């Protein structure tokens, strides 16, 4: 038979099955839409970051360190022909409005801000937008600064007013409306204050133990190529004396850490999206099975007139592929449209300006995954066509022969491997793909078992009492071969996903949002100079601060760990948790440990001849040290070797002052130090305390725990919303499957309706019988899904995040009721035609 004839036959064979095939396509569309939306959005964001890479860096190259950039690096930059550089310093500090206090005893309002001191030339790329407009040179000098609009409101001042930063007063020259190198999504301590470097010097804040981020932005000669950038990078790199503490980044890499982070988010969301596609796969299997069940006679005729078994298989496989293409293409279009709407809905989560567009690569990937999933799930039922005996043309009661066990097992294997493969594609890792597949298969198996047990129990429930609708609904659910198991499992998986995600997010935000523990401090004061402490303490006492705790700390850097230079360890480790080695370490001395510290290995101050250090357990694991190893620190240029003599655990959830590294008393006596303090004050007094401290000790930074946690909760809620929106696709897929299963049984249902009506039931009564059946399906799916969601969220919060678990019955109830309602609505919508059947029309048809 010629190819064209085959194609024509395949096309003709789909006639009349359109209703059923719509469900087939819908099952795929939902999942493909989710996959495409995630991939399309992340592609667009990634492309936007790359396209705006220079603007986001404000330079061709940036050199960054927690210490001043060494002179040899600056010399090396100046040696590159045609290059220009601009220094940028960033640090958090409390800023106040002294004018508001004039004529009163109370200090003016204060606000924790992020200071940024820039040199002329900044930004080399992108534009700093200000009101009034002007260049850095025009707007900033030693006495004038720019602020973000929200700082003006919160400090009760305006352009032209004055602000106190550190020890110096400034005039507000204007507001910042856009800053090229500040990402919209980054976590910030407060609004931006932009000053000149001379201005920052005047504040006296630098060099007082503050957390300053030093950067030098470099612009290469116009027309420089990426090769020139690479060359410049290597020139700068070789000039750096201690590369482990200095980072060089070029625009060519386009925000590597941001993109790594976004990549992780994309892979996670990609798997959530894949889940809805795989649930859709269950629907595909169901739709194919129902479709072929209605084609058995036609298949038998084809076989009788000489079509070979494998030709029948190819015929129906081809139709499946075409339908999958149609369903996936529709889903891809819907997904691309959804991706275009997301930036408007979740603006807080998108780090850059994004034009999403149509994303052909993401659409193709979605279509590929859609067709792949359709084939994976459709293969097993499709194989049944090979086993339709042609003699069925003479004897209709002859059923298809069972597929051989070996072949059935092989097909299951293909399905499982295929699920793992699609997950590997979505997560970019074979291991993660395998883990996802294993988790999904385990969860599905548990749901199948649960659903089977419940449905069986329902089937055996005595039905002598209760309303007609209830009795018939119970009978319909428990009837063998009712086809509701697949729908229950699919819908249940959707409920697990959405409810599980919601509960995890709810627990996390509840934990962060909860009242702090009674004994926990509510504010931390950092960068207190030793001579300021009595004064700060007096301010705290005046403000009725309770449980003031204070410790002196010495800043230092790790030089070597167990004899291995940190530079070598950094090289080995790459970017993964590199901060453990390169951050500025805070060393404290203590005679005895706070009560929430427990020694788990070694003994405190047990080695008379050597200076000792006690290391927190998880930090020690990160560093890779144990009792007996040595750590060498660099304290303001002086090396200090410490022997690890004890490892201890710390209860961080109490928020009290604690350190990864505690040094034996006496060892740090000669080192320059600052002091930190923790205290508990009523929420209403926090602002007043901050204002007073800002007025008297402007270099002291007060961190308010409640405010910080609120910011984290804000971000978490947005992420949670995004995950739940995607999770909703899994429920949609479940609903599509339920509707498909009901539609597949339309003939049987039509006959039942005819019989019910013949026996005297009104249409409303028949609808009630069906509604009870669908409500029971929703109840079983919702119940099992809710249990699954609770187990999932319990395991994740308890063991993943290690936070307390709590029951939230209201959420479970909402999940259950919504599932029942959705199930009834979807079920009745899919039964409209069956309900309209006239008794005679069906009864005349016979079998």
């Amino acid at each position: 038979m010629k190819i064209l004839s085959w194609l024509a036959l395949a096309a003709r064979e789909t006639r009349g099955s359109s209703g059923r095939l719509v469900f087939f396509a819908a099952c795929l569309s939902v999942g493909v839409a989710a996959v495409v939306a995630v991939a399309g959005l992340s592609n667009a964001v990634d492309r936007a970051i790359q396209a705006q890479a220079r603007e986001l860096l404000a330079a061709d190259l940036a050199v960054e360190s927690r210490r001043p950039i060494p002179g040899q690096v600056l010399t090396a930059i100046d040696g590159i022909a045609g290059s220009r550089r601009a220094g940028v310093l960033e640090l958090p500090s409390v800023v106040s409005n002294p004018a508001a206090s004039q004529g009163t005893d109370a200090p003016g309002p204060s606000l924790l801000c992020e200071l940024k001191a820039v040199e002329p030339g900044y930004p080399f790329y992108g534009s700093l937008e200000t009101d009034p407009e002007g260049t850095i040179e025009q707007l900033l000098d030693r006495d004038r600064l720019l602020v973000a609009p929200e700082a003006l409101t919160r400090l009760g001042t305006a352009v032209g007013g004055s602000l106190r930063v550190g020890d110096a007063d400034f005039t507000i020259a204007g507001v910042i409306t856009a800053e090229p190198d500040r990402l919209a999504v980054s976590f910030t301590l407060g609004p931006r204050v932009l000053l000149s470097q001379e201005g920052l010097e005047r504040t006296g804040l630098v060099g007082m133990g503050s957390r300053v981020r030093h950067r030098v932005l470099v612009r290469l000669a116009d027309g420089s190529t990426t090769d020139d950038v690479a060359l410049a990078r290597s020139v700068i790199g070789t000039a750096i004396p201690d590369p482990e503490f200095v980072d060089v980044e070029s625009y060519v890499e386009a925000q590597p850490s941001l993109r790594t982070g976004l990549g992780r988010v994309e892979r996670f969301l990609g798997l959530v999206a894949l889940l809805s596609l795989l649930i859709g796969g269950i629907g595909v299997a169901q739709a194919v099975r129902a479709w072929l069940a209605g084609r058995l006679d036609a298949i038998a005729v084809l076989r009788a007139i000489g079509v070979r078994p494998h030709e029948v298989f190819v015929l129906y496989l081809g139709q499946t592929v075409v339908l999958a293409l149609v369903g996936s293409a529709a889903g891809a279009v819907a997904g691309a449209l959804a991706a275009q709407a997301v930036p408007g809905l979740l603006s807080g989560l998108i780090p850059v300006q994004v034009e999403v567009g149509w994303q052909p690569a993401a659409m193709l990937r979605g279509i590929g995954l859609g067709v792949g999933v359709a084939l994976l799930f459709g293969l097993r039922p499709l194989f049944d066509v090979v086993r339709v005996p042609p003699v069925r043309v003479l004897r209709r009661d002859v059923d298809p022969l069972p597929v051989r066990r070996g072949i059935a097992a092989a097909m299951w294997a293909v399905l499982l491997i295929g699920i793992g493969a699609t997950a590997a594609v979505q997560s970019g890792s074979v291991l993660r793909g395998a883990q996802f597949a294993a988790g999904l298969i385990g969860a599905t198996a548990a749901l199948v078992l649960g659903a089977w047990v419940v449905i069986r129990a329902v089937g055996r429930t005595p039905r002598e009492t209760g309303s007609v609708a209830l009795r018939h609904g119970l009978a319909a659910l428990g009837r063998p071969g009712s086809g509701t198991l697949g729908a229950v499992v699919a819908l249940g998986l959707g409920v697990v996903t959405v409810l599980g995600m919601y509960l995890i997010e709810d627990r996390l935000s509840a934990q962060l949002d909860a009242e702090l523990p009674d004994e926990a401090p509510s504010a931390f004061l950092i960068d207190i100079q030793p001579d300021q402490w009595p004064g700060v303490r007096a301010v705290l006492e005046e403000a009725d601060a309770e449980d003031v705790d204070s410790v002196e700390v010495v800043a230092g850097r790790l030089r070597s760990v167990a004899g291995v230079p940190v530079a070598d360890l950094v090289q080995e480790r790459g970017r993964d948790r590199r901060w453990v080695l390169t951050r500025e370490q805070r060393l404290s001395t203590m005679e005895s440990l706070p009560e929430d510290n427990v020694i788990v290995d070694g003994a405190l101050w047990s080695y008379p001849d050597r200076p000792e250090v006690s290391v927190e357990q998880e930090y020690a694991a990160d560093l890779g040290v144990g009792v007996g190893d040595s750590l060498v620190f660099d304290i303001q240029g002086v090396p200090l070797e410490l022997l690890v003599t004890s490892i201890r655990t710390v209860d961080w959830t109490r928020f009290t002052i604690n350190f990864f590294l505690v040094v034996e008393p006496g060892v740090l006596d000669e080192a320059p130090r600052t002091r930190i303090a923790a205290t508990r004050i009523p929420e209403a007094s926090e602002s007043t305390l901050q204002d007073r401290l800002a007025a008297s000790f402007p270099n002291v930074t007060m961190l308010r725990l409640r405010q910080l946690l609120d910011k984290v909760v804000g971000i978490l809620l947005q992420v949670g919303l995004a995950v739940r929106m995607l999770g909703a696709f899994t429920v949609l897929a479940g609903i599509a499957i339920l509707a498909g299963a009901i539609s597949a049984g339309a003939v049987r249902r039509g006959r039942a309706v005819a019989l019910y009506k013949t026996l005297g039931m009104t249409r409303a009564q028949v609808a009630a019988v069906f509604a009870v059946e669908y409500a029971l399906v929703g109840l079983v799916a919702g119940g099992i899904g809710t249990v699954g969601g609770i187990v999932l969220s319990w395991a994740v919060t308890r063991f993943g995040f290690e936070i307390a678990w709590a029951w939230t019955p209201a959420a479970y109830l909402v999940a259950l009721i919504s599932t029942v309602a959705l199930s009834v609505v979807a079920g009745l919508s899919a039964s409209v035609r069956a309900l309209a059947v006239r008794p005679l029309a069906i009864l005349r048809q016979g079998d």
Partner: protein
Amino acid sequence: MSKKEPGNVLLSLRGIGRSLPSGGRMLTILDDIELDVRRGEFVAVLGPSGSGKSTLLALMAGLDRPSTGMVLLEGERIDQLSEDRLAVLRRHKVGFVFQSFQLLGNLTARENVQLPVELLGVGDARGRADELLAAVGLSARGHHYPSQLSGGEQQRVALARAFAPRPALLLADEPTGNLDGATGRRVLDLLVALRAEEGSTLVLVTHDPAVAELADRRIHLRDGRIEREETA
């Protein structure tokens, strides 16, 4: 071509038995059937319900396999062929007419008739379909779907489809069983006329003696055995 010469044996059934498991024991449907059908012959198979008529027809077409004995079509033993070989054999040599018409509901009348010719992959399928639809008087209804045709019309389309690939052997299972008397008669006349025109060998299962009257030979089955044979 020797194939078209009348008189030589087209189909042979040798010692055919067929039994099926039923209620824990084997139920004998056919037992020790010996039968030769000559080329160009019209054989009617008669018998009451359950006598094994349809099973005999299924065995002749290679739709079913005997429990004992062998089936030879044009001298080739077909009861041991693979499903694939059997399909190709039916495609080239066997045509069917069923009591319940068995038209493909998704295909128009013309497409139903075209299909077997398309399967062969030779000749002008469309032309052949038009020719046969004209022969059964349905030229004007080629674009209609089976559900839009009356029972008699559907069976006439089925006749056209059966003859389309010019099969050596035509098997008909109660072709008038679902039709009223007049319509049935008309379909039967068409079947006989087309057979004469195409020179096909016809085995027809019926329980209607009037239909069997038209055959060259009548085989009477009872309880799975050949009870008697009559020649016209």
